[in-house]
């Protein structure tokens, strides 16, 4: 039996119990893992690796897409992009993986006075299905802005429709929804919105930075889920740190994305190319 951490995580060898191929190369993988199934929150992740082989050496972080406490299973949304994700995507039902989770700080529910606007780029959609369910349980709704290069990058759209969550699509090739960037569709919505909003975003760094700029310009709170290279997932390797400047801190510091994130207050993140003094001024203004 694995021991379970006070924070609810456990390391287990878990069987793959279901595999659903979506439009290639995307795949949904469901594993049996009671602790993740019962306690994973939107934005949390697992560190997972299919074999004991030393190549690739490290586990990879994946956001939890769905958790089913009744079946003790959880589901990952995987796009094979490198050896870690490819090895995982190649697993067959019954084969096992080493899996530690749930890990990290989840998204905070936006304040009730604000509309929850979820902004996803590509497989950054992963945490938002769980988030929509969490908000739904509190009788709250959300709106999803989902962008990618082409229609095939926008998987799982119908799952949001099933939850009754409105979804605005954006594709750079114009094949679906708004032709252009997802942040343009977001801004068009914000221009016409009658209620204040909070932005919750997950996707490529450039998109997250754009969301952070929009939030700062419009004085909106924003949470971003970052995805740096991660070594351990538990705060021991210090490889995944993010430079942040909190409003009440005298100077910037490095925070672990695995234990103090992956969800950060967008205003606190020092984005690539930003000066520390600029971030400090912004932190003081928000």
């Amino acid at each position, binding site marked *: 039996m694995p021991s379970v951490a006070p924070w609810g995580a456990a390391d287990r060898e878990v069987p793959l119990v279901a595999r659903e191929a979506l439009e290639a190369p995307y795949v949904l993988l469901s594993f049996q893992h009671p602790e993740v199934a019962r306690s994973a929150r939107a934005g949390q992740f697992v560190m997972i690796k299919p074999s004991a082989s030393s190549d690739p050496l490290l586990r990879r972080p994946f956001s939890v897409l769905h958790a089913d406490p009744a079946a003790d299973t959880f589901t990952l949304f995987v796009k094979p992009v490198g050896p870690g994700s490819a090895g995982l995507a190649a697993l067959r039902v019954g084969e096992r993986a080493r899996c530690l989770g749930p890990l990290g700080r989840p998204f905070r529910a936006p304040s009730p006075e604000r509309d929850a606007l979820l902004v996803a780029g590509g497989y950054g959609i992963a945490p938002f299905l769980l988030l929509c369910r969490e908000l739904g349980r509190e009788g709250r709704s959300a709106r999803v802005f989902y962008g990618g290069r082409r229609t095939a990058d926008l998987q799982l759209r119908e799952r949001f429709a099933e939850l009754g969550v409105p979804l605005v699509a954006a594709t750079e090739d114009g094949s679906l929804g708004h032709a252009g960037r997802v942040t343009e569709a977001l801004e068009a919505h914000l221009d016409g919105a009658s209620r204040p909003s909070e932005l919750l975003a997950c996707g490529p760094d450039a998109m997250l930075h754009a969301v952070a700029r929009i939030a700062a310009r419009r004085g909106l709170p924003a949470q971003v889920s970052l995805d740096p290279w991660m070594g351990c997932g538990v705060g021991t390797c210090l490889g995944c740190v993010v430079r942040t400047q909190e409003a009440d801190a005298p100077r910037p510091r*490095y925070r672990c994305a695995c234990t103090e994130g992956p969800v950060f207050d967008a205003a606190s993140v020092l984005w690539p190319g930003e000066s520390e003094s600029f971030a400090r001024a912004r932190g003081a203004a928000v």
Partner: protein
Amino acid sequence: MSRLAVEFAGIRFKNPLIAASGTFGYGVELAGVVALHKLGGFVSKGLYLQPRDGCPTPRIAETPSGLLNAIGLQGVGVKAFVAEVLPQLRDCGTQVLVNVCGDTVEEYAEVTRVIDGAPGVAGVEINISCPNVKKGGIAFGGDPVMTREVVSAVRRVTRLPVIPKLSPNVTDIALFAKVCEEAGADGLSCINTLLGLAVDVERRRPKLAFGTGGLSGPAIRPVAVRMAWQAARAVKIPVFGIGGIASAADALEFLIAGCRAVQVGTANFADPCLYDALLAGLLDYLDRHGLQHIDEVVGTLQYPGGDA
């Protein structure tokens, strides 16, 4: 577990498996996930007098069977460690060693003084081999004169066992091992990471923001076994073998080559719960070879042509 108990530099470990510095945080991060009391001990992340930011990002890159890192010894500083972390480790059931760093010889001694007065510390590992800092680290461990100075300075201010961690980025590690022994070291840790460079070919830049980094993991194991073997032959004090250990067989390579105990490093990231399998594997080895105690394995390498 007494068949695996070892004495090293005056420290009694319940087994020869110690988690290596920089791969196990301050021992509290994995509480509940890893049963600390199953380990022989662990070595803290390197500590300076003051808190330290470390290197810019990216800090890590995966390489074939290896991990290249330039963390730059980010840490809370020795005073916060003593005040806030050590009390949490009071009943952890394993030996706590502290990895001591410094920009100057005086800082190494000062950090050691703080540790020497703190309860619950079994020994001091001296970091004279970190490749990812501009001062201290390998700047000291790559120079026998500076090595002697740092080890002597630390020796003078503590009665705790003193264990310098040696760099593999030298031509003759035996020379450094002897210098440490003469300067009063009680044991040695061999080896720290190998200096490496990984290139992002699209951007034509190093993959790590610091530039070069330290290579660890199974990729370095044969180099590590060779250097630990050379060091162990050169001195009478015991040696921790370190470098790419992920299985009982890996640990046995170092023990057979002459190391009294081993440290497990990068494998803590890939599989934090590997200690059960390692311990079972060591006991299985003793059974298969008709041995009573792990000490009977140490230094039994039958090297071709004899041990010159």
